[in-house]
């Protein structure tokens, strides 16, 4: 697939995902870390849903500042951190049935508490929320260790069962992993020089550092998408979701304007791909350094050009031997030369 084709195709896909068109993905799983919070991406979802007047139900398990304080019209927040799952389920169903429109966006701020406290009810709970008219978006933080219920307790989760994250990945129709553009660029820079990629935050190797510098940058978010089609075939692509204006919107078929761009179209991501411009008055500093003169004088260059390389003729079309003949001149003293050998 050519780049242009892929660009149009995949931008159209992410545009449909973010704008919740045609129930493209009933359950989208967002994976985030301390390097890049999922909040900018979730805000984008909320923004686009609000502009289409799709009601939003925000299920908050541990948000200290849930959205809606900012005042989005059709946004309802359910405080779920004290609710048992059955009560939460009832509340959600009641809310959904009270809505005038059929479509609804469900957002779960963090799946980690649910995975820690009752991993065995995770699957039934999520599948009860998925329906053709609702879109479910849930964030799972990869760097929060899950402390599962102890063995003896009532809600114990068997050791042999898959970890909640594996289950979630299996369920999800789309997985969006968010990354920090700053950290990705630094990592790429290191890779390009065959250096070890730097760690960030807790992986920085500095005791006491929790969040790395360059985490959740203001300019935008990198989104790595894995979209599963109904056939089961996956589409993977990296995108950049710019936070403000400043990036050109792409005009997609159907008159849709999309501000998301492919990651490889990000100007700073591309810069290391391009061969650096040379010859603007500067000496190439990357050249080998030696006390010997490795250059050629003009006279030497001229003489070198006059040298006729051996077997130069052979490279011509239908050269000396013609075809694929092997040119071999036996050396009388070294090679064992025997006329009769070929005659059998």
């Amino acid at each position, binding site marked *: 697939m050519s780049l242009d084709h892929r660009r149009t195709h995949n931008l159209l896909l992410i545009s449909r995902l973010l704008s919740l068109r045609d129930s493209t993905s009933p359950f989208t799983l967002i994976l985030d870390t301390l390097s890049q919070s999922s909040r900018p991406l979730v805000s984008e979802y909320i923004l686009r849903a609000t502009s289409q007047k799709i009601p939003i139900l925000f299920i908050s398990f541990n948000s200290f500042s849930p959205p809606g304080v900012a005042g989005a019209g059709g946004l309802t927040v359910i405080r779920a951190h004290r609710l048992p799952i059955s009560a939460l389920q009832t509340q959600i169903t009641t809310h959904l049935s009270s809505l005038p429109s059929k479509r609804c966006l469900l957002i779960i701020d963090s799946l980690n508490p649910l995975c820690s406290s009752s991993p065995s009810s995770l699957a039934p709970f999520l599948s009860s929320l998925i329906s053709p008219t609702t879109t479910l978006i849930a964030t799972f933080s990869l760097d929060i260790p899950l402390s599962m219920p102890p063995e003896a307790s009532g809600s114990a989760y068997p050791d042999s069962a898959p970890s909640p994250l594996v289950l979630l990945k299996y369920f999800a129709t789309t997985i969006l992993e968010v990354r920090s553009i700053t950290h990705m660029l630094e990592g790429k820079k290191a890779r390009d020089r065959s250096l070890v990629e730097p760690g960030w935050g807790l992986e920085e190797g500095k005791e006491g*550092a929790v969040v790395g510098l360059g*985490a959740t940058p203001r300019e935008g978010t990198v989104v790595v998408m894995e979209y599963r089609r109904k056939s089961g075939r996956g589409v993977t692509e990296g995108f950049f979701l710019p936070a403000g204006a400043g990036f050109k919107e792409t005009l997609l078929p159907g008159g849709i304007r999309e501000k998301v761009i492919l990651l490889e179209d990000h100007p700073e991501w591309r810069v290391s791909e391009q061969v650096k411009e040379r010859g603007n008055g500067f000496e190439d500093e990357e050249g080998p350094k030696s006390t010997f003169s490795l250059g050629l004088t003009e006279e030497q260059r001229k003489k070198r050009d006059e040298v006729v390389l051996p077997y130069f003729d052979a490279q011509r079309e239908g050269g000396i031997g013609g075809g694929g003949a092997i040119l071999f001149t036996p050396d009388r003293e070294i090679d064992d030369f025997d006329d009769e050998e070929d005659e059998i």
Partner: protein
Amino acid sequence: MSQSLHHDLLSHHISLSSSHLCLVTSVLGASGSWYGHSLLAALLKSSSTVIHLSFLHSAVFHSDAVRKWGVDLGQYGRKGRYVFIDGLSGLFLPDRTKDGVSMQAGLEKLSQQVKEKVKKVAAAVGSSKVVLVVEGPDVLLSVGGVSSMEVVNELLDWHELVSSTTVMVNADAAFVTRTRTRLEMEEASFVTTLAHQAASVTSLRMLDTGLAKDVSGVLRVTTSSETANTDWHEKEVLYFVKDGSVEVFNRGQMRS
């Protein structure tokens, strides 16, 4: 000096408009006490009412230390602008002290006591003016045997009663990167959960290159993108705690 510290490194605690959480982490070699005290002073100098719940120190320790920042806690206490909740002295005693909380009857009882005190203050001055500062709640995980989720849930409940919450916890490597035992897992889960939810994370740590005579440690502040009211997004500076004052400066900056 304290003026510039306030402007640079405390502004994000004060100027945030909506409800939010600020996390302050420290390590054994770089104590967060001075930061907490300068924060208390700055909050009281602005028009906030502060509820200070400390699981690490007693009231006397704090009032002595904050006096160095030019603020008399006793005076603010009498005006009702500063309320101290002692989580240390009576934590395992039957509730005896007037301004303390006890865990004798479990975390829920403790939380109930905190909520009552917070509600009383919020009713008096209006919840939008109340800032809750919680120092060392991670101690509950290790001594109380409760899970990180339970403590986060209590913090959420308290947070709903006030305008903003600042939580100070330990982030030594032993607390945040090991996940072998249940306690290690709970500690790590507690700190990372709060860091995920926080609008700003302030981390104090020791100098990467070792001890120095004139540098006490490194202070890093990262804010999440929604809190766009500061003109900076993240910052890393060095600091030097002297007797009674703190100097904050950039790497390589000339100092007097």
